[in-house]
């Protein structure tokens, strides 16, 4: 009856193999190991004897003992399934052999029923082992999966920490860059302010000659008329002395007229100096009621004479058509004056350049028109047009002309800020600045400003 022993061998082998994974069961390992040497020897002896001996009972005993231990010991709790699988067979085979010792009718019937029960227990054992094995495999698979997941989680956590480090490094770099950019922006704002001031001074420089001319003329009149009046007064004395009253009265009339002229030209010079001071002032002034026609006329003359004085060959016709119905409108006069000056300078520059290219048969003309109109929405508007028959603006640069620092003039001759500042100024006045042009033929800048409100 070596079946028990063989089963025992495999059971112990199985237990030992499983136990080797777990620390708490290490102490059992030695016993199992020794059993694995002893049991085969017992099997061989059993087979050699070929007679049922004490070994058969030993086999039953050990098998039941192992099953019992496995069932009862806490360490083997996860092998209870094996016990359930093997126990019926161990008990049945023990009972079968045990009843074989006795020969009477009761035991005989018992032996017969045991012969039937025993195969059933084997089937049970095999079935249970298969099921158990399957469950174990599934469990193992599950465990494996969990281990993989844990591994993945660990890797992800490591990756996350790594990423967080990178992110914080980037963040600090970005903050640094942001500070640098803010610094650069502040610098740029400062430079922009300086450039605007420079542009003002540059246009003032262009104006100087014109201003000198404009001041010189009225001053000459003041001096000349003052001299004339001196002569007239001497004549007046003579005529009074002669008793020639009608002549004296005529001279007095002339004297009065000349005094009016002296006063007029004195005021003219005064206005030009004041305008110049306003123009160079860094902070733009407040809005005040301004005669746009007067402003346009003044700056047109300044621009014209400035360019004349700078370039002896420069010459151009200018025509003006001022609408007397405009009245005075609320603007910052020095700002709008700058816009006008800029447009006039550009217009004169454009016709002068064209004259250089086509000296024959070309009549340069700059015309300035003002007009009081009513817009489509019913609000009053003042339209100022500055038109020249110069070079015009090529379509490919047309959308760039209001960009700061864009200039078509040779380097060093233009700041490229004139039109961009003009655009800003007109926008700040709630108006608009538009251009109509055809390359090689004309350019017309049109300023629209809100008109009188009353």
């Amino acid at each position, binding site marked *: 009856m070596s079946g028990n022993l063989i089963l025992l061998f495999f059971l112990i082998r199985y237990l030992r193999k499983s136990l080797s994974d777990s620390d708490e069961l290490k102490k059992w390992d030695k016993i199992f190991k020794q059993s694995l040497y002893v049991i085969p020897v017992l099997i061989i002896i059993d087979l050699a004897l070929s007679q049922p001996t004490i070994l058969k009972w030993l086999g039953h005993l050990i098998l039941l003992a192992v099953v019992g231990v496995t069932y009862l010991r806490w360490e083997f709790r996860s092998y209870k399934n094996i016990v359930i699988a093997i126990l019926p067979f161990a008990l049945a085979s023990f009972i079968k052999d045990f009843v074989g010792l006795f020969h009477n009718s009761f035991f005989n019937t018992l032996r017969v029923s045991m012969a039937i029960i025993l195969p059933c227990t084997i089937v049970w054992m095999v079935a249970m082992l298969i099921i158990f094995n399957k469950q174990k495999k599934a469990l193992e698979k599950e465990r494996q999966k969990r281990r993989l997941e844990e591994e993945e989680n660990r890797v992800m956590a490591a990756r996350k920490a790594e990423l967080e480090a990178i992110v914080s490094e980037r963040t600090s770099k970005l903050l640094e860059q942001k500070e640098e950019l803010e610094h650069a922006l502040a610098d740029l704002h400062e430079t922009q302010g300086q450039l605007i001031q420079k542009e003002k001074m540059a246009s003032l420089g262009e104006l100087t000659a014109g201003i000198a001319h404009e001041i010189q003329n009225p001053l000459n009149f003041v001096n000349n008329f003052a001299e004339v009046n001196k002569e*007239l007064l001497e004549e007046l004395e003579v005529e009074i002395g002669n008793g020639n009253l009608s002549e004296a009265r005529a001279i007095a009339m002339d004297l009065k007229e000349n005094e009016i002229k002296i006063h007029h030209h004195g005021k003219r010079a005064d206005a030009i100096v004041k305008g110049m001071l306003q123009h160079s002032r860094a902070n733009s002034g407040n809005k005040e009621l301004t005669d746009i026609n007067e402003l346009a006329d003044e700056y047109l003359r300044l621009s014209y004479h400035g360019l004349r004085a700078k370039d002896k060959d420069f010459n151009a016709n200018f025509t003006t058509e001022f609408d007397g119905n405009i009245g005075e409108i609320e603007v910052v006069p020095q700002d709008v004056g700058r816009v006008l000056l800029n447009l006039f300078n550009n217009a004169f520059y454009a016709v002068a350049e064209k004259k250089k290219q086509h000296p024959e048969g070309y009549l340069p003309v700059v015309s300035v028109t003002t007009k009081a109109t009513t817009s489509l929405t019913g609000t009053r508007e003042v339209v100022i047009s500055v038109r020249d028959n110069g070079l015009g603006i090529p379509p490919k640069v047309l959308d760039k002309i209001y960009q700061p620092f864009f200039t078509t003039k040779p380097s060093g001759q233009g700041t490229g800020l004139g039109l961009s500042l003009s655009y800003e100024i007109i926008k700040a006045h709630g108006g608009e600045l538009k251009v109509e042009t055809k390359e090689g033929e004309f350019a017309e800048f049109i300023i629209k400003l809100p008109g009188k409100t009353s």
Partner: protein
Amino acid sequence: MKILVVDDERDMQTLFQQRFRKEIREQLADFAFANSGEEALRYLEQHHHEAVLILSDINMPGMSGLDLLQHIKQKYATPPPVVMMITAYGDSENYNRAMRLGADDFLTKPIDFHLLKEKLKIQVNG
């Protein structure tokens, strides 16, 4: 003698009329006035038979005094009218150009009327 004064400043007319009141009264001088180079040329076309002395400003809108000078000296070759330039810009470049174009004299503003009268006397008499 007819004297044509060309200047874009209209008050120049009053000034000349008053400064030369005695001469005008005594009919020693006869003044005409033009406010631009173009107007001066039109006047000359209408009065081309008259002996004319021209006093012209240089800086004027449109046709400048130098353009006018060039026109006159080319068109009225015989006998050429006397042309005196009067300008606020008495720089050497302006002076040289005026002289090259055939100006008979060159004066700077403010006009020294005593000097002008002397020069006119020489032109009229001589």
